């Protein structure tokens, strides 16, 4: 083999293969320490679906949720030097996106503007039903129920319920993401569950059957 030939100094495809094998936290460290753009691309590949779904459940609008996640990834890049490795990767990323979603929700000025995306969202779900298989349909139906019932929650209650009960994050991480104490998370969670259960019983009694029969018994 010649020793004077070209030396492969960098291959993006090979680098990407390497990134696929490393953890989320290692990707954030590659962003922070090396401004590695491929690491950002890899994070986008891993997190987009979950983040868009989470943001959508806060703002009730798919397109708006996509915009929020785009800006979230932009912030992740621009503030990459602030990442503290004592935090889990999910905490860091969800903190950015959740706060953007809450901020976006609060920036809506009129009730009409707030209702419109929900109406469009519901309509789009109905329009898409025929194209979905049964599992997707059930999931979409539950998603629609959550979208509807969660309008009764405050922004913080919705975010806390989403992160703790749906995403399954520990309370400590939820507190870090939402920016409050764990005791506040506990209060938000209690109240959110109480309200959602009440709304579920009122609007979708078929799903609240067990709880109601227990109360009657």
């Amino acid at each position, binding site marked *: *083999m010649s020793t004077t030939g070209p030396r492969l100094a960098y291959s993006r495809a090979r680098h990407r293969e390497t990134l696929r094998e490393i953890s989320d936290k290692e990707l954030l460290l590659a962003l922070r320490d090396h401004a590695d753009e491929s690491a950002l691309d890899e994070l986008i590949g891993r997190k987009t*679906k979950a983040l868009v779904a989470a943001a959508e459940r806060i703002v009730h609008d798919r397109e708006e949720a996509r915009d929020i996640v785009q800006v979230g990834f932009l912030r992740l890049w621009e503030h990459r030097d602030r990442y503290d490795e004592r935090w889990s990767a999910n905490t860091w990323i969800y903190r950015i996106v959740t706060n953007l979603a809450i901020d976006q929700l609060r920036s809506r000025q009129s009730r009409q503007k707030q209702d419109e995306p929900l109406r469009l969202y519901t309509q789009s779900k109905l329009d898409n039903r025929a194209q979905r298989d049964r599992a997707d349909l059930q999931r979409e139906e*539950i*998603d629609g129920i959550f979208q509807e019932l969660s309008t009764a929650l405050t922004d913080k209650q919705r975010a806390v319920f989403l992160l703790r*009960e749906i995403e399954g994050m520990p309370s400590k991480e939820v507190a870090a993401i939402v920016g409050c104490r764990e005791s506040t998370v506990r209060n938000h969670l209690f109240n959110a569950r109480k309200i959602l259960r009440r709304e579920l019983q009122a609007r979708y009694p078929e799903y609240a059957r067990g709880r109601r029969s227990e109360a009657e018994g």
Partner: protein
Amino acid sequence: MSWRDGSVVRSPKGDAIDWRGLAARHDAAPHVEVDGLAAALARAAVDPDARRAALDADPLFLFRDLAEADTRGPVGGSAEDDAEVHAMRRAVADLRRASEIARASDRDDAGRGDETSRVARPLRAAAAVAGLAAVGWLASPESQRTQELRDAAERPSSLVAEAASLAPASLSLAASSDATLAPSVAFAENPAATSLEAAAWPDTVDTAAIFADGAALASQAVAAGGTVLAVVDPATVPLVEDLSSGRPLMQVEDDALSLVVLVQNDP
């Protein structure tokens, strides 16, 4: 198959889940982890009887179905998911570019108030940058370089000369010897390849590789029917951009690199 007995689900293996007990403990302290709840919910996700019992015990378990799993890498999802990820990458790349320009603009507009939300502002900046680029008003040094690279890619007949013009005058592609190419090193990206064949470069920009002393590789690529998109000197062109999207590919900071070659085979 399992069966339901009140709130307790039993399977033929004899294990049981006390859903009412789990739900009561979770309801009393939803902020703490309840032993066995995660495993029970995992079971409910695949066992219809367990799911029914879970919902009987606490209807709010319904929303556990909404959890989205992370994906590893861009492949493996549905076509719809892949398209969403691809669109997200493009959008984020556009936002980053717009953000850099907006920051420069902010310095000029210091002190002027802005009531736009944190989400709307960068998106508006991105739209403005896209509009300026579309009418040719945006001519940053980086975009000029991108345009040079694109122009080179669109003129394959004069490709080597065009590429060479971007390299230092002291380097001559024609003077390079093909024999200096070491396949085992040059094709580390595709270990099965032994020459610059089309199959060795199945994609376009994703196969971009950066070689030290890339002059020999460039002439090899042309001899094999490939296309050299650009040959650039890191000393004068430190930013290499993705030729299809215009987004930055990498910042060349390694002084040991004498030349950067982006190679693409003919489609």
